[in-house]
């Protein structure tokens, strides 16, 4: 029993990280009907920015509350800017073109980011691009046992609490923003019909770039949480993690904000149980098998709405 509870906790902790990335996919899909395949790579850039920032700080500072907050803020703001530029220069010119064009472009942007980061570029002692060699993410949060129940039956680590906490705060904020504020209303209006929204005085372009900025910032936050747990940083990390988060968004019903969170938590739990009770070799296979299963039973995802096609 205690083992089961332990797995649930671990699953939720990794699920919340998926959730933060999945929210970016789902929001962008919501407003643009575009799967932004570069999203995982934006997250990877965020991790590297966090890495670089923490290397600039003293070891003690980077482990302080101030240091951690600073690392998160710098990474999130840099990624927000990156998201803005990707949308502005890669996707906006293709807005009125067929959706496939933008999709291929997204894959292109993804490759561009993940492969250019593998070219080590140092200019005047300043590392601009990190190169392909994996790096260890600094221990900005020292792993300690937060709660131990019984004779080490259940161990909850501090980073698990922190990542669930940060993720919960970011997700609640997003939920509030999307459903309770007029910006969220504009976002939903653009998502429903961006032409009409424009004719009703909503600045469609700005709503879309803001959505990208928001999603990219969340991804950077998620990436750092992931790096704290996993410690390994390398330029291709965004591809797998991004793909998993995309799967989570599809499971929840892509375009649906709470759906992405539920899908991500489900995926996190499924993976954890496979690793816990089976073998870690099967983890990814089961994760994608889970996707296939959901698509067979409910192609629109858990929360998605089925659109009947008129004949």
């Amino acid at each position, binding site marked *: 029993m205690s083992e089961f509870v332990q797995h649930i906790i671990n699953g939720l902790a990794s699920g919340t990280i998926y959730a933060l990335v999945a929210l970016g996919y789902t929001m962008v899909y919501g407003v643009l009907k575009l799967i932004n395949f570069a999203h995982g790579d934006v997250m990877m850039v965020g991790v590297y920015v966090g890495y670089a920032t923490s290397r600039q700080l003293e070891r003690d500072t980077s482990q302080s509350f101030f240091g951690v907050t600073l690392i998160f803020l710098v990474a999130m703001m840099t990624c927000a800017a990156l998201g803005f530029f990707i949308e502005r220069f890669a996707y906006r010119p293709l807005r009125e073109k067929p959706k496939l064009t933008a999709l291929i472009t997204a894959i292109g942007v993804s490759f561009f980011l993940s492969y250019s980061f593998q070219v080590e570029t140092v200019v005047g002692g300043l590392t601009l691009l990190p190169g392909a060699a994996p790096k260890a993410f600094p221990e900005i949060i020292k792993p300690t046992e937060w709660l131990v129940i019984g004779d080490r039956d259940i161990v909850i680590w501090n980073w698990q609490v922190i990542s669930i906490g940060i993720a919960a705060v970011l997700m609640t*904020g997003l939920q*509030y*923003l999307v459903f309770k*504020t*007029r*910006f*969220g*209303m*504009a976002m*939903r*209006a653009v998502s*429903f*019909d961006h*032409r*009409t*929204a*424009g*004719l*009703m*005085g*909503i*600045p*469609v*372009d*700005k709503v879309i770039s*803001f959505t990208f900025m928001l999603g990219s910032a969340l991804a950077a936050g998620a990436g750092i949480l992931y790096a704290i747990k996993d410690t390994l940083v390398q330029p291709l990390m965004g591809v797998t993690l991004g793909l998993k988060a995309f799967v989570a968004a599809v499971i929840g019903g892509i375009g649906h904000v709470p759906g992405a969170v539920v899908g991500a938590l489900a995926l996190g739990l499924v993976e954890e149980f496979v690793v816990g009770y089976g073998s870690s070799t099967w983890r990814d296979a089961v994760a994608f098998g889970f996707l296939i299963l959901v698509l067979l039973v409910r192609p629109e995802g858990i929360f998605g709405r089925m659109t009947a096609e008129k004949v």
Partner: protein
Amino acid sequence: MSSAAPTGTGAGVSNNGGAATLLRVQDATMQFGGLTALTTFCLEVKAGDLQGLIGPNGAGKTTAFNVMTGVYRPTSGDIIVDGERVNGHLPHQVNRAGLARTFQNIRLFKDLSALDNIKVACLADDRPASSMFSRTRVNALRKQGNFVGARTLDAWGNYLDWWRALLTTSGFRADEERITERATRLLEVMGLQHRKDELARNLPYGEQRRLEISRALATSPKVLLLDEPAAGMNTREKSELMILIRKIRDDFKLGVLLIEHDMKLVMGICERITVLDHGETIASGTPAEVKNDKKVIEAYLGVESKELQA
């Protein structure tokens, strides 16, 4: 052409002889590849005007609306809203300049409640008059002819708003309440207050049409463009709607331009009518003038009928 004769052509127009011109379309032409959908279209709407735009199917009426509201950029010609030349501007910029519209096929945000549909449109006019980025200030810049400045101020206002939304400042919450209040009042104007929290998709057809009009009004337009507002309504609903449109024009002091198929209706309500056929303006004037225009009769009944009459 309507632009050339603001006075003396009919009772409705001469009443407004002194009113400011809010919308002026000058020789607007719209070509799609080799097809000319609209040829040298001219129109002038003043405050308090109630004008009609009619013509057979495919005459270019909706194209004219799309050209005016920034959906299409006219191939040549000018669209001037309250002194600002808006062709080539994005739809939301045209809307903020003072042009709001409804659609032939209802295009509400169907997944939002009736109230939220209006609140969304209130976004275009959401800042209190005292604020740095208020619409009053933006309009003042427009009046001075500083259109770039007006748009920049407007854009910065948007960015500021999002930060306030993210940080949920108290001022932001106050704004939010003000918008809700304004939206509720607009629902009342159209007699939809009982539908406040219902999803737009669940409203009956006639109420959806009315909701679309109140959504357009929420953007505080100077000229309201109605694309077949009475389509699909029965005779009684139609006459009620027409009374409502007149009332809106008087209460909000707007210019109204409407597309309508029902000739009887247009003749009854509009003070001035422009008739399009194959993209060309074939007549323009008071209902009485238009009704007896030979070209109009031909366009509607075909040439054969003329031969029959002869």
